[in-house]
């Protein structure tokens, strides 16, 4: 595939403004760029969802103009969307064959399962064809998407931010799938904003910035720093700069905490943990080991079954979320769109969500829009929210800017403690840098910060102490300065011993 000077202009925006790319047979080619650099627009044009304004796409030696995904699929382009196009209520086999089912009038379920089984054998994508997709893990669902592409005889696989929703283990498995595709001669276009992944998996990298392809480099000659600089267009600080911590009194004491999730499953099974003022405590763990239920329980969103939460000397175990907020607990929830913001509200309404009852935002029960707007505009300036327009709806902002709004709201209330769950998930290098700096600043002001993250790198670079959670229990707590990736990775699997096994 070859892309020559491709352009896509929307009214007022040049989403793609000169994209050049050559994809060779059997190579893994990464497209690296920050959110908003134009990666998705490019993908949509390749997949027939958008029509280019200018330029051309050549595929297998011919110039192509796809007007719909149907035509792109037919030509042999297989796309694995970031948000899967799967039907949870149907089985794996049904999802794979949908639209091209075996049988005449009757749907030949056996034949469908047989074909999907054969494909999964051929491409070494082990999966049960008769399982309901909704019951599968995210990693397995992704396999179904890849199988869908092969069922339609894809000659090229596009992976759009494929690791965004995966656990570290699943990412490993995906990478081995990509390797075996490469061995079979199937070219893979790997879209990502994560430097380490791109460096690990690709043969060549094309960096995009502001709608243009900046440069294509051999991965073997690239470094994280060189790629980050290309992406952002300036020198970026990758490693967080921070002075040694000066931890003080404990701000939060968790004693033998037990928590059940919404489905009544016990997720936190007796956690003892202490967070001090002036430190960042990282909570590391593989997704689904109770870390987010623990965070929700501290914020008051999940009920404590057993145990105690002591905050600043007071027992808050039975307090409502609002009481905890008032007392000085700030929370950046894991799912910013679901729990962090009211997407259909504008930024003013979202920033006063915690304090709208109080002066100066409300007087005798009536909201003072002017005061609220003034406050919001100040936060927008301080936290560099873009676009700087307080009348925008939260849903109109990019993920990074949504996160800035949440952080601005939580931090500006001058809390005693911040719980940050996945604060940089899905954000690009520039935005991550800003959010990390905020967390360190809070710590230096003497607040307690509990950082819950699935990103090991993030935990390692920020935390003063690292607690590792496995199956609802704290396995170990280690000082951040001495922790290594291998050590924490091993603890995350629940093994406490110092074995010789090192994780890849």
């Amino acid at each position: 595939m070859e892309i020559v000077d491709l352009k896509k202009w929307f009214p007022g925006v040049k989403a793609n403004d000169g994209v050049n790319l050559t994809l060779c047979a059997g190579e893994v080619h990464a497209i690296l760029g920050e959110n908003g650099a134009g990666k998705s627009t490019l993908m949509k044009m390749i997949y027939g969802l958008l029509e280019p304004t200018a330029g051309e796409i050549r595929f297998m030696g011919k110039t192509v103009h796809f007007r719909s995904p149907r035509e792109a699929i037919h030509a042999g382009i297989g796309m694995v969307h970031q948000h899967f196009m799967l039907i949870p209520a149907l089985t794996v086999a049904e999802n794979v064959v949908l639209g091209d089912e075996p049988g005449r009038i009757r749907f030949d379920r056996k034949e469908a399962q047989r074909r999907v089984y054969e494909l999964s054998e051929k491409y070494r994508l082990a999966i049960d064809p008769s399982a309901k997709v909704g019951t599968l893990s995210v990693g397995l669902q992704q396999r179904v998407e890849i199988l869908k592409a092969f069922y339609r005889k894809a000659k090229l696989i596009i992976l759009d931010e494929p690791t965004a929703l995966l656990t570290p283990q699943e990412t490993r498995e995906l990478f081995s799938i990509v390797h075996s595709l490469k061995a079979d001669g199937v070219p893979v276009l790997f879209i990502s904003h994560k430097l380490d992944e791109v460096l690990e998996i690709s043969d060549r990298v094309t960096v995009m910035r502001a709608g243009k392809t900046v440069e294509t480099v051999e991965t073997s000659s690239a470094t994280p720093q060189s790629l980050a600089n290309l992406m952002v267009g300036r020198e970026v600080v990758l490693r967080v700069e921070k002075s040694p911590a000066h931890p003080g009194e404990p701000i939060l004491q968790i004693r033998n905490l037990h928590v059940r999730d919404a489905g009544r499953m016990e997720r936190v099974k007796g956690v003892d943990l202490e967070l001090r003022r002036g430190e960042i405590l990282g909570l590391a763990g593989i997704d689904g080991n109770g870390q987010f239920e623990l965070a929700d329980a501290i914020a008051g969103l999940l009920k404590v079954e057993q145990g105690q939460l002591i905050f600043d000397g007071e027992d808050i175990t039975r307090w409502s979320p609002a009481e905890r907020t008032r007392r000085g607990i700030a929370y950046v929830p894991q799912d910013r769109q679901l729990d962090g913001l009211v997407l259909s509200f504008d930024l003013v309404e979202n920033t006063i969500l915690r304090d709208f009852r109080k002066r100066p935002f409300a007087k005798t029960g009536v909201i003072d829009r002017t005061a609220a707007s003034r406050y919001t505009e100040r936060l927008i300036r301080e936290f560099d929210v873009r676009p700087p327009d307080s009348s925008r709806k939260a849903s109109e902002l990019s993920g990074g800017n949504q996160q800035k709004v949440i952080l601005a709201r939580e931090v500006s209330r001058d809390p005693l403690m911040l719980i940050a769950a996945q604060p940089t998930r899905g954000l690009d290098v520039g935005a991550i840098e800003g959010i990390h700096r905020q967390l360190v600043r809070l710590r230096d002001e003497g607040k307690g910060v509990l950082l819950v993250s699935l990103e090991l790198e993030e935990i390692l670079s920020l935390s003063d102490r690292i607690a590792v959670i496995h199956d609802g229990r704290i396995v170990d707590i280690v000082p951040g300065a001495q922790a290594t990736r291998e050590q924490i990775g091993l603890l995350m699997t629940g093994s406490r011993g110092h074995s010789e096994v090192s994780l890849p």
Partner: protein
Amino acid sequence: MIFSDPEIWAATLSMAVPLALPAIGGTFSERTGVVNIAMEGIMLIGAFFAVTFSYWTGSAWLGLLAALICGGLTASALAWGAIRVSADQTVLGMGINIFAAGLTTFLLNTLFGFNGTPINTPKLPNVSIPGLDKIPYIGVIFQNQSILVYIMIVLVIVSHWFLFHTRLGLRMRSVGEHPLAADTLGINVWRIRYFGVILSGLFSALGGAYLSIGVLNGFTANMTNGRGYIALAAMIFGKWTPLGSFGAALIFGFSTALGIVLQGQGISSNLLQMIPYALTILALAGLVGRAVAPAADGIPYDPRRS
């Protein structure tokens, strides 16, 4: 003992027909992603035009055909509004219900006057299957039932097979769950939804015709008496499957039949008439088992913005 009397089971079966048919229709519509609460109105239209054409043509079968055509047309209007112009499906459905109640009452008065529909209107035949009536007990249940009872039983089985064992059935379910995914695989979402909604119109009209030319041979104003809504409950109760809908319709039918039988036992008939409606509330409140609607049920699909 009333439960050992086959008559109550015969009545149950007969009462289930005008609930099961629209419930299965609703299943088809909602499985493709269009909420259909217009079953009540479409039943009324079906009931009215069945009688009218049965009287005019002198053939109950032609009356049935007219009911199906009118029901299909009404459903097409709902489909167009829900699919093409992305209108709110609940409001649209209520609109059709109110319109149908007004239209049928108006036409009843203008066409037939105050005497109502003529008493010599032909109705569909009642039949007993030879052989079946020889079996003790069961034979009594199926003795002299309307032909539509047998048609319903066939439709229940065919519908279930169609929805869960054919290619088109699979596509219908996929469109109701995740239309964008179906669209990217080359499935025409709009066409499938039209099909589902119109199918629901045909089933509802059949249920309406059963009331006016199957059980009786006349039409009275608002004669469906909320059965379209009870069918909606039966559909939910039956977890959006034809077999389940039929099962739920039997339960509701039984409660109606029970009400009729118990009337002779000195219990207030007003109280007994509440039974099916009380059951409906329980079913709709989700107290009887957890029911999960198709994921995209009620959400319009616009392929241009995705």
